[in-house]
């Protein structure tokens, strides 16, 4: 039996379309910077380890570390708008998921604040700490950056399954919902890919002697995980729970994004084959394809969310209205 709670008896402050545009549009911008931050951290870790033997890599790692703190500041602020919109549009769903996973939901605050402080320590104490401690800092940050997305994913998965709300007992139980881990893998793979793209963008116009080497690394970071997405992506798709509404359009868009991803891989592969002097020229095409994929993913996710909840939201709205009318009757005819 699916629970149907009543919503807050206050109207929405803006048309649904506007709130949806704020939610989806700004979330895509937020997730872009989050993936660059998390993936960038992975890249710094790898470059730093290679830098133990080759100073050139240490120099690259130091350069990349500077991007993490900027990306993290922008990622955090861009996340506030979508949070505001999801609080407004999906009040019952989001707050219910938050409460049922509350112990971990609230951990986001100290975990992320701590990770950010450590990120600064890692950046500003470069060369002044013992190697093991400097690497230890980045490993701790990496572990936090890998865990926090899971907390968000559990929440946004749980909010779409009202029929499971009365069954889950705590965060780890909710983490066993179908689709959580495949979607998590999908997200984690997107991080190095996006960081790879960021590095190509950063270095393509640099006169640095390592330019071609770093751009190749960027493309490899983009290409490898994106190829793995051809397995993980469809797995995330087929593990999506069934919905009361039709998923047809959402699934079609997801499939469409696979075609664009194939195009992206082809162009990136072509870039890798270019001579040093020309590498990076195909970047606008690759970045354009990535933007298209992001928009398709964001749109399809929203369509899936609507397919999962539109009937339930109608039931919640009807119950809320009945409650409001009953409350008014009790006030006027005590």
């Amino acid at each position, binding site marked *: 039996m699916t629970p149907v709670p009543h919503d807050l008896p206050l109207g929405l402050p803006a048309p649904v379309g506007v709130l949806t545009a704020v939610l989806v549009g700004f979330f895509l911008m937020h997730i872009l910077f989050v993936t660059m931050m998390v993936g960038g951290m992975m890249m710094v870790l790898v470059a730093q380890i290679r830098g133990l033997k080759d100073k050139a890599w240490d120099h690259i790692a130091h350069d990349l570390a500077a991007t993490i703190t900027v990306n993290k500041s922008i990622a955090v602020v861009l996340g506030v708008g979508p949070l505001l919109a999801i609080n407004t549009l999906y009040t019952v769903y989001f707050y219910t998921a938050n409460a049922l996973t509350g112990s971990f939901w609230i951990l986001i605050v100290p975990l992320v604040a701590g990770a950010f402080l450590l990120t600064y320590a890692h950046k500003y104490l470069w060369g002044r700490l013992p190697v093991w401690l400097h690497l230890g800092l980045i490993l701790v940050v990496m572990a936090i950056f890998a865990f926090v997305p899971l907390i968000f994913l559990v929440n946004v998965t749980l909010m779409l399954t009202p029929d499971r709300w009365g069954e889950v007992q705590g965060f780890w139980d909710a983490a066993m919902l179908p689709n959580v881990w495949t979607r998590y893998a999908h997200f984690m793979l997107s991080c190095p890919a996006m960081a790879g793209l960021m590095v190509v963008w950063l270095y393509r116009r640099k006169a640095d002697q390592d330019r071609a080497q770093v751009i190749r690394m960027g493309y490899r970071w983009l290409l490898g995980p994106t190829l793995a997405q051809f397995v993980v992506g469809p797995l995330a798709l087929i593990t999506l729970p069934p919905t009361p509404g039709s998923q047809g359009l959402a699934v079609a868009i997801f499939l469409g994004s696979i075609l664009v991803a194939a195009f992206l891989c082809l162009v990136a592969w072509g870039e890798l084959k270019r001579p040093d002097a020309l590498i990076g020229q195909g970047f606008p095409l690759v970045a354009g394809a990535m933007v298209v994929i992001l928009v398709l993913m964001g749109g399809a996710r929203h369509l899936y969310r609507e397919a999962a909840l539109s009937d339930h939201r109608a039931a919640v709205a009807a119950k809320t209205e009945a409650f409001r009318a009953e409350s008014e009757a009790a006030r006027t005819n*005590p």
Partner: protein
Amino acid sequence: MDFPIYHLDLMGNRLLVAVIAILHVLINHGLAVGLIPLVAAMEWYGARKGDPRWDRLARRILFFAFLITTTVGALTGVGIWLSTSLVNPASIGSLIRVFFWGWFIEWLVFITEVVLILWYHLTWESWQGARKAAHIRLGFALAVFSWVTMAIIVSILGFMMDPGNWLTDHSLWSGFTNPIYLPQLAFRTALALCFAAMVALMLILFFTRRDDPFRYQAVRAVSVFALATGPFVVLAGWWYASVVPETMLANLATGLATMQFEEWQDRLFLGMIGAAALVMGVAQLGVWRPHWVPRLGLLVPLVAVMWLTGHFERVREFIRKPYVIGQYMYANGLRVEDYPLYQSKGLLPYATWTYPLSQAETAAIPAGASVTDVQAGKDVFMIACTRCHTANGVNAVRGHFQRMLGDDPWTPDKTMDTLAYMHEARPFMPPFPGSPAELAQVALYIQTLQSVTEPLAGAQSAGVKLREEAR
């Protein structure tokens, strides 16, 4: 009321929000709103006098502020939403619906503020010479944006105390221009500047050497700044206190400390005056004899101003009780206008979730009592009491009844009157929201609690079940 109930039984839910919110306010007021204009002024002064020492000092102070505001400051800001969505979702959900556009604009300003602080910090070295003037303007622009974010949020805080005309017309503008808005904004602005001066004094003593005459020049200048803010803190504080509704002032005695410490009120007032005098005294010393100001000794006025700010927040939170949104929603998350319905037909017919009795609670059910009634009592307790009370932790119901009734059995005939009329004896408590039958059921659950010492589990660990009636 229809959200699964998150509950922290040891520390209490309010403490979770308080820790995050007060930390955020300390960082926001002391390191952003107050400190950034001071940093920009130092940079401007250094450029005007051609003295690079001011520039170096300003940069170091900014770096410290930058590190803290963009990490702990930013996350505790988001954390206020995350924690209130757990502790009182009905309240934050309603506030967001009323103030959506206010918050949206605040968010755009916040984005600008973050971009500006990144820009200001990262261009400090490269924007020298002819570009210095532009860099100084960037600093002052950042100061303005920092203040604007606070100016928007303060309207929401004022609204929670007294929604004013919003109660009748439900418009965003009425909510924004609530009666407490401008006085509170003036007070916070002055307090932030004074607070920042104390932070800056401390940082100056860490960032300069004892044998450097510049240290004393800087201490004197910042002390003058602190002294200049003092009268404004007092004036704006008086203006603010004068617009706090009468009913809230009645709660002030308990707002300043917890109930059992009411008698400490006079001493606490003296403490607050003493703390303020200490801050001003140190500032005066900084002007008069800057080399007498000791580095560690400065910790005392800094802690004093932090305590004053934190305590001011605590009092603000408490005196608006029994409401979480003045006259609109009680602290338990139930709307005032829904009370007639709940009190006639009960809370539970409109509740979706039930919170199954634990083994210890089941074992403690008094002889002859029905499990169904105790279960209903627990569900009412979760809805009506747990937003402010715990069972066995901070502000524990068991503790209160233990003090009132001791070890005698807490039978409903001894507790029901207390529950029914507690809001008359204690004006900061909301009236009991449920039906007479539910009053008896919650009294029965409280009798059960007498011998249950384990923490009361919230939805985050024990989960929830769908109520039979909601199926």
